[in-house]
């Protein structure tokens, strides 16, 4: 955190938060630093601020989401913004309206921020080209989920004080995971060493070019790691068979006490949720308060999203 404090004066130069790839080190530091100030607020009696009073935030979720959508909604409300969560199931999208037309319609209502989740990679980029307000990516296809990576970073920093020099294992369905990609970019930027652990059928092409070491043997991949990030098997994105069975997957890639033993003794377990207990993670490990920081991730998620909303909703501030 020491480095991060020094850079407090840095401004955010981007108009939109589309991905970690677009952020500089100093911008990331600024967001994390800002988020820290909200952690306390979120635990206090009165959680309401008026930083974004008069601002309008639209949540545009084209994919079902529990934690991310409610996290963004709470974050906006706690900052005093007017938050509108669009229910896509009942909207014109279902009547064949294109993303751009929806965007233009919403744009005409003068929102200050649009938070978008979309099943197609690049959808937030397209939206950002067409609207006048800030666009925040809440997950697009398998490309990026920047606020998830940022909240993961904050959780690690909260526990370990730093990320520089840590060894992080990202395990599971890397192929379909935007969380994995954002975390690879972010943790690399913050100086961690990254192992990815997955069966070969769930590894994207040339993943090593993103600056990671690849393991198909989970024990080797976890060896001496400080952080173990588990990913959900994204069955809904899978076309055809990638694995023989959940049972076989659990046997070789599920996080069990036995496999975890090759990581550092105090290694932290993370998961972006929602979890498939007994598929990618042993249910007792997921609930182990000494090892699992899964609930803390959710908690800090609100703080990180408050920081992002504040920093990217710059107009008039």
């Amino acid at each position, binding site marked *: 955190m020491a480095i991060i404090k020094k850079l407090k004066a840095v401004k955010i130069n981007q108009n939109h938060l589309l991905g970690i790839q677009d952020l500089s080190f100093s911008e990331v530091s600024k967001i994390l630093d800002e988020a820290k100030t909200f952690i306390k607020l979120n635990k206090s009696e009165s959680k309401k601020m008026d930083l974004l009073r008069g601002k309008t935030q639209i949540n545009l979720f084209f994919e079902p989401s529990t934690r991310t959508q409610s996290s963004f909604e709470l974050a906006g409300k706690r900052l005093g913004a007017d938050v509108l969560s669009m229910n896509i199931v009942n909207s014109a999208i279902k009547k064949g309206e294109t993303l751009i037309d929806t965007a233009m319609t919403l744009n005409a209502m003068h929102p200050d921020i649009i938070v978008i989740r979309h099943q197609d990679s690049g959808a937030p980029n397209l939206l950002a080209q067409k609207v006048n307000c800030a666009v925040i990516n809440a997950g697009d*296809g398998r490309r990026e989920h920047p606020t998830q990576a940022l909240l993961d970073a904050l959780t690690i920093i909260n526990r370990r004080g730093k990320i520089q020099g840590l060894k992080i294992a990202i395990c599971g369905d890397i192929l379909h995971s935007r969380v994995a990609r954002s975390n690879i970019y972010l943790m690399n930027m913050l100086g961690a060493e990254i192992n990815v652990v997955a069966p070969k059928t769930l590894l994207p092409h040339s993943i090593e070019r993103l600056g990671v070491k690849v393991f198909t043997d989970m024990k080797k991949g976890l060896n001496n790691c400080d952080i173990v990030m588990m990913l959900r098997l994204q069955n809904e994105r899978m076309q055809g068979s990638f694995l023989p069975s959940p049972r076989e997957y659990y046997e070789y890639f599920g996080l069990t006490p036995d496999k975890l033993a090759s990581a550092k003794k105090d290694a932290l377990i993370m998961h972006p949720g929602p979890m498939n207990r007994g598929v990618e993670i042993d249910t007792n490990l997921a609930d182990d308060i000494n090892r699992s920081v899964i609930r803390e991730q959710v908690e800090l998620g609100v703080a990180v999203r408050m920081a992002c909303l504040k920093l990217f909703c710059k107009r008039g501030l």
Partner: protein
Amino acid sequence: MKEKYLINARIIDPKNNIDEKGGIIIDDKGFIKAVGKKVSIGNVPANEEKIDLDGKILIPGLVDMRVFVGEPGYEYKENFRTLSNAALAGGVTSVVSMPNTSPVIDNVSMVDFLKRRGRDKSRINIFPAASLTINAEGKQMTEFGLLKRKGIAAFTDGVRTVQNPQLMSRIMNFASQSQSLIMQHAEDNILSKGGLINDGEISTRLGLQGIPSIAEKIIVERDLSFLEEYFCRYHISQVSSKKTVSIIRKAKLEGKKFTAGVSINNLSLNENDIGDFRTFLKLSPPLRTESDRLSLIEGVNDGSIDVIVSDHKPEDEESKRLTFAQAATGAAGVETLLPLSLELFHNQSIKIQKLIATMTSNPAKILGIKKGSLDIGNEADLCVLDIDKPWVVKQKELKSKSKNTPIENRKLQGQILKTFVKGNIAFNRV
């Protein structure tokens, strides 16, 4: 019409191995009467009007083997008139039109319609392709013999591939009787399912599902295996990867008789050009790596690849202003085929004779048509170009009805000045 005398040109005619200063005489019916160095200011009638080409290059009008028209069914994307304008501005005088219209060109009555529309509205030569299978569904073969007799130049499912190996083997077997030309778009649907761009680092970074090059290679290998059993006229529409080039090279060395094409897009661009989800570069086959691109150039140079096509696929703005996954596939390119390919000459990738041959005499030979050369007695379809003229591609200035060029703002060197069809000036740049 009167005889025309085109003088003072550099004539390049790969078929007749001509590259010399000279001229051309077009007779009063629009046929080539004389060509070469003997046609000069000194030995044409002094009182006749002459067209002085000022030392510029004169080549046969281009033959583009892969063009999508839009008639019938997609007239809002491109019709024969707008296609003609675009083609002529690019020096293209003959095209093979793809059958992926609505309805699909899969029966004799559709061919009559096309021929009528082509005759009435088109100012270039249209050589229609019919589909290999009914409705291009890959289930039931079309009437090769009857369609060929009606004037169908080639058979292809266009954007689709015949997946069923049994059907494909029977198609190749049956079509050999009528000597029909089979053109395969090589892509295994199951391997490429859901794929949007080349499978590689870029697809991983953009989070777009990849199309592995093996999806192409496996179909080429399959069809070349069939070719050992059933000898037919077989052409691979577009090769995109290094792996496929080496399969083709090997097969040709072994003496197998078939031909292959490549899109100018795959020769001039690579996956990096997709940048920030530029849907105009969503193509089929997809743009691949730089190493793949270089191997395609090598393939053209050593004869593994015979023709360069534009793969002109006009798509309206509404079909492209979508997320990458939802956007239509394809790029407009008939107008920029020659100028963009000249880049390969200017950067010394491909020699000029070779380059011109891939767009004139080679496709004409594959199709078995009297085009793509300056043979005496051929219709005078000609293209005059300034090979050095620099210009910048501007969407708005393109003649095609759809403006989905993949090379917007690209600086090119070489521009078409005049295009002749059947001896008449059909395009004249002012």
